[in-house]
Every structure is written in C-alpha cells, then in structure tokens.
C-alpha cells in the first residue's frame, strides 16, 4: 500500500514503463543466473541508488520497503545454514539424539549467497514497483500483447482492493466499537462475520459497478486513452551494457 503511494511521487513515474520493465527483468535474470555475492550486492546497490537519485524517493522509505522481505529471507536462510551429520568442521554444533546439528563454513557461505541472490532479485522488483504505478505496468504489459481480459481483470482487482479494504476497515470499527473483539472467542466470531459480510457486499457491489460501466457504453473492453510517457532511448543500451558488465565480471571471476 505504501509502495503504491511512493510510486506516484517518484520522478521516474512519467518514464516509459516498458523501459523500466525491460531493465528490471533483464537485471533480475542476470542476478539469479550469476549467483554471485559481489554481483548481487552490486545489483542491490544500483537499484537503491536509482530509486534514490533518479526517482528522488527518500532513502528511509526505500530501505523500509526492504524490511518485510528481509525478515522472511532471514528465517528462510537460517534453515539452509543448518546442516545435519557428523562432518568434523562444524563451527558450532549441538547434539540431538546422537546426531550433530549446526553450521560450518560451507553451509554459512551457501546461506549468504542465497540471501543476497534473493535480495538482489527482490531489489529489482522493488525498483520497478517503487517507481512505476501499477496502472503503468499494466499498460506496458498491454504493449507486450498480453490478453486484454487478464489486464482488465488486474486493473479492476487493483482498483477495488482499496474499496474492499476500506469496507473491511469500516465493519471492523463498527464491530470493535460494540466490543466485538473483547474476548478471544468473540474475536473469532466477529472476524467470521466480517469476512462473510465483506464478500456479500463485494458481490452486490460488483453488480453495481457493472451497471455503472454499462451506463458509459461498456462493450466488453475497458478502453481508455493511453498516457503518453517520456521516452529515454538511452535506457535500453544502458540496461544491456550494465548487464553485460555483470556477465563479464562473473565470467572473469569464474576463470
């Protein structure tokens, strides 16, 4: 939600979304393919740098968006770092039912690699979503000839998530103001009622939305005027150059 708000303040908002999508996807794949600590770190830094200097977003907001995936990544990576077995080179170990559990150099390294690879990939997606409103991503996908139905549905879902959440919020308040969340059992009951009524309301509303669309001449396609974006011809060569550099770097390090 906050990311969505930030995207509207980014200075890169008016840039052609196809260019941003191209850079994001290319870098994402190279980052995953390279599976290299240095390259992952470079990708992360470049993406933060782009959002900060080119997008003009506050650094604290950019870093804050990384908080959520960091927690998940950290928890996920811990399970990778731990090894079972009787290998002698444990840095730290404990014995459970005669089997050693702990981590050693190789497993720690593997976990760190994985951690930064995933974070690098996430940073690519964050660059895109912090600097491109969702609607613009859809219009880029439209130019890539994705099916109309899929795009129209995504647009409606995106638009009405906010109304759905708003409705849920109002019902929650109405329930809470009457002690609906007073006890544990009561909370369960109230939450059930809330979910049920949000969905019946959404169903009723979808009928109303359909009628409103009809009244403006809807014929099955959400036809709207496409926005005109600023186009920077340098983005494609620069994105390719940057990724070639990463690939060469990877090759050199392997050699």
């Amino acid at each position, binding site marked *: 939600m906050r990311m969505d708000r930030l995207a*509207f303040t980014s200075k890169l908002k008016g840039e052609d979304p196809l260019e941003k999508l191209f850079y994001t996807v290319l870098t994402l794949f190279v980052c995953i393919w390279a599976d290299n600590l240095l390259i992952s770190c470079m990708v992360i830094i470049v993406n933060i740098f782009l959002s900060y200097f080119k997008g003009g977003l506050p650094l604290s907001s950019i870093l804050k968006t990384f908080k959520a995936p960091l927690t998940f990544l950290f928890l996920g990576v811990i399970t990778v770092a731990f090894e079972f077995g009787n290998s002698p080179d444990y840095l730290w170990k404990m014995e459970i039912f005669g089997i050693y559990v702990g981590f050693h150099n190789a497993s720690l390294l593997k976990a760190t690699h994985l951690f930064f690879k995933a974070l690098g990939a996430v940073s690519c997606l964050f660059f895109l979503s912090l600097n491109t*409103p969702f609607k613009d991503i859809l219009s880029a996908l439209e130019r890539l000839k994705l099916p109309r139905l899929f795009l129209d549905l995504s647009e409606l879902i995106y638009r009405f998530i906010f109304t759905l959440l708003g409705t849920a919020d109002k019902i929650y308040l109405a329930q809470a103001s009457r002690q609906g969340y007073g006890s544990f059992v009561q909370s369960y009951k109230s939450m059930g009622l809330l979910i049920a009524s949000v969905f019946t309301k959404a169903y009723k509303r979808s009928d109303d939305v359909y009628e*409103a669309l009809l009244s*403006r001449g809807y014929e099955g396609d959400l036809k*709207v*005027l496409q926005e005109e974006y600023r186009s920077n011809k340098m983005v494609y060569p620069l994105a390719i150059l940057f990724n070639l550099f990463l690939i060469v770097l990877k090759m050199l390090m392997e050699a």
Partner: protein
Amino acid sequence: MEPIVKVKGLSYTYPDGTKALNNVGLEIFPSNTIAFLGGNGAGKSTLFKCLNGILKPTCDLYQFQGEEVDYSKKSIAKLRESVGIVFQDPDIQLFSANVYQDISFGPMNMHLTNDEVRARVERAMKATGVEELKDRPTHFLSHGQKKRVAIAGVLAMEPKLIILDEPTAGLDPKGVSELLNILKTLKEELNMVILIATHDIDIVPLYADYCYVMDEGKLVFSGSPEEIFKEPERIRSLSLRLPRIAHLMEILKKEDGLDIEGMPSTISEARKEILKNEKRD
C-alpha cells in the same frame, strides 16, 4: 417547444417480482433542470436506469429527441451516449486507478478519434475543476474529489441530458457548494438538461425549473417548485418536507399573521416578502 424526452406508460418489474415503476409518464424540455423527489425506494434510481438503457422497461412510448427508443442494441448504444448517469457512490463509478483514464473511458466507447477524446477529456476536466487531480490515483482522492471526477467522466461523453443521483449526499458544505457551481456551469454554459434525484430539498427551489414527485413507483405530483411547495400537506404525506425557508414562511403566515403571497422558498424571495410586510407596518 418539442420535448427532449417523452415517456408514456413506462413500467418496470425486477426479476424478483418487485414492481419498481408503474405506468410512469413524463415530458422533459430542453435546457431545463428537473428535480425528482421522493422517499427511499420510490423508484427514482430505477427510472434513471431505464432512461439510460441499463434496464429494459416495458413502455407505450419512449422518445428521445423525437426518435423512438426501441431498446435494440443500436438504440441502446445511442441512448447511453445521449443520457449520462452520475451514480450516487463515486466508488462504484470510478473503475480505473488513473483519473485521466477513467474520464476517457466514456468517449473511448463512442469510437471517436484519440484527439477528439483528448479534447473532450480536457473540456470535462475544466468544467468540473479536476485538472489538478489528473495525475493522482483514484483511491487517494477525497469523496468530493471522486464525485467531481465521476461527473467529468460522464460529461466527457457530452450527453444531451445528464442525470445526477443524490449529487450532494455525503459531501461537506464546501463539497456541496463546489458541486452546485458545477451544476450551474452545466446549465448556463453548456445548456444541458439536468435531472437530479435529491433529498436535499433546500437546493430544489434554487436550481430546479420543474419537479416530479415519486411514490411507490409512480409519478404522483409534478409542477414548478412554487406550485409544489404551495401544498405542504401533500408534500409531507409523501415522506418529504418543505425547504427550511418555506417552512419558516409557512409559520410566519399561519401563526404570526404575516401577509405572504404564495410560498417563498429561497432566501431572496423570503427577504422580499418580509421587507414588504415591514414597510406596511
């Protein structure tokens, strides 16, 4: 003068058997503002949906600008271009996350050139004062702003007749006055026929040239605001009330014996009548 809308014997029954409209007949003349009054469930919204072609009623006659509407696919498409509805809840009407694109939706469906659509969107945004909201996402707008964008979305189709369902509902005083200014622009500069359903009785004598009062799916009463408010008993029996000013004048006349002609229901009319009495004393 030829009426722009002529309806005779229009009835509509919902699939569940509720009879929402019963033998409605009306005539609407060019450059008029018509108020539709009536309690909740009187059938106002259903009537509007029939006029725009969302619902298909049975009727003896529906003429729009002298042309018969037969609810065929072609005539419905034409109807939707000529009759625009602004729904009560703007959250229902605004489907796009982008203000500009939402406004362009109606004219795009009319198969116009992109340049023509762009020009229409610009004009509609100017008339409703939403130019500065152009780049904002729909879901971060206030209720009043959403309402104005919804009006712009209908206005961009440049309909002959615009219907506003409860346009002032849920707006703060500033929002109401902005909306009424838009109504004035539509009426005076764009010369549009405006239909409003409203519970806000106080705006009726200010903006409406003619009123229809509905009850239980029927048109029960019609006339100019002066004619309608001259019959307070009848108005009250239909779960409506007089405008506050008219109510005050009614009391001054009955209880305090002021000599008041007709039923003044706007501030300026009431002022004139009170000053007239003052001079006489």
